[in-house]
């Protein structure tokens, strides 16, 4: 399974995708929103935590269809399914690789972008909320990708399926970030966010593996 993880990371880097691009997208959202909304600092500071969370969510979303589609098209997925690795392991590794390539860099970069969006403080909480929430985004996204792997490039269908599933994570994540920024008490949303991530990571690999197996036949 480590082999699979390493291969996926290496492919992400070779594809010119990899760490840089998820980040770059995040950066672009942070640039575009002021362009679209207008430059007032007070307004931007108010919407910054929410917008950055929405941006992170979209950055995850954009890269979801890579998770299985390439392996399906070139036949590797069939071959992996007949290999000694259980499908649950394959799915979990894919989600982990996706998180390492997308979620983790976003969490690390968020404080910098928060400065661009005129956020006065609380950058640490923003980063923590992202670090805690993005694993759930990757895992849920992997489940969505597993559902649509048989379909010819169901890119937008995938988005449609996954986004409602992202809602609780988004709400609690943005809430943690917002409360962190304004210095309010944030124990409850933080605990809920952690619970969602824990639950998703513990249970969704089974559902996703089931979906992949159904799609392969």
């Amino acid at each position, binding site marked *: 399974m480590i082999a*699979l993880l390493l291969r996926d990371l290496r492919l992400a880097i070779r594809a010119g995708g990899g760490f840089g691009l998820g980040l770059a997208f995040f950066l672009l959202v942070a640039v575009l929103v002021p362009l679209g909304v207008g430059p007032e600092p007070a307004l931007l500071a108010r919407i910054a935590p929410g917008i950055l969370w929405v941006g992170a969510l979209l950055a995850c979303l954009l890269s979801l269809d890579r998770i299985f589609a390439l392996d399906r098209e070139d036949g590797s997925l*069939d071959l*992996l399914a007949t290999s000694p690795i259980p499908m649950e392991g394959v799915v979990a590794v894919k989600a982990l690789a996706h998180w390492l390539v997308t979620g983790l860099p976003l969490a690390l970069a968020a404080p910098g972008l928060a400065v661009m969006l005129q956020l006065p403080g609380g950058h640490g909480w923003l980063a923590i909320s992202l670090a805690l929430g993005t694993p759930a985004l990757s895992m849920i996204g992997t489940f969505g990708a597993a559902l649509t792997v048989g379909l010819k490039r169901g890119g937008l269908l995938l988005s449609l399926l996954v986004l409602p599933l992202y809602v609780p994570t988004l709400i609690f994540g943005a809430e943690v970030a917002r409360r962190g920024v304004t210095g309010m008490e944030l124990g409850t949303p933080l605990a809920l966010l952690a619970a969602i991530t824990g639950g998703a990571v513990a249970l969704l690999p089974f559902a996703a593996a089931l979906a992949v197996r159904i799609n392969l036949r």
Partner: protein
Amino acid sequence: MELIVENLSCARGGVIVLEGVSFRLAAGRALVLRGPNGAGKTTLLRTIAGLQPAEGGAISLPPDSIAYAAHADGLKPTLTARENLTFWADIYGRGIGDTLDRMNLAGLADRPAMNLSAGQKRRLGLARLLVAGRPVWLLDEPTVSLDAEAVALFAGVVQGHLAAGGMALVATHINLGLEADVLDLSAFRARPRIAGGFDEAFA
């Protein structure tokens, strides 16, 4: 060790394609699947590989014994030949040894797979069988795109596998020159009917 298929029915796209397929394959033996395009060779191999459920009948084979080579090779264009092979070797928990040499790919080891010609890619895809270390090889038209020399090379590889006690089930239109039994799938073509109890009971 034996692969036993008994009275197997397989479906593809909701239609039963083959029925009543029975054969036994002992260690050290190969079986060539013949049949015109659309006879159901791919369907049968996928069913035996466990990628799709059988519609009826039974397959018994030793656990964890299958290495499957499909129409598609599963190569990653951006990885080099060696990286591609090493990945599969790791998946099966083994090393690649002199496999590249044996498939006549030594000179191309560090070239990304996307820069290989069709036949070179195919050889690399087949090299995966050697690193899998599995006794039962399911080969779906393995020699497509290969030139005569490469076909002979691959036939030798299969022969070696059989000599070491392996088995091979080969769907092919090309004569590999293997000493093997032949199973003509035309004989098992199903009368046209719909798979799955529901539609069938109904229509």
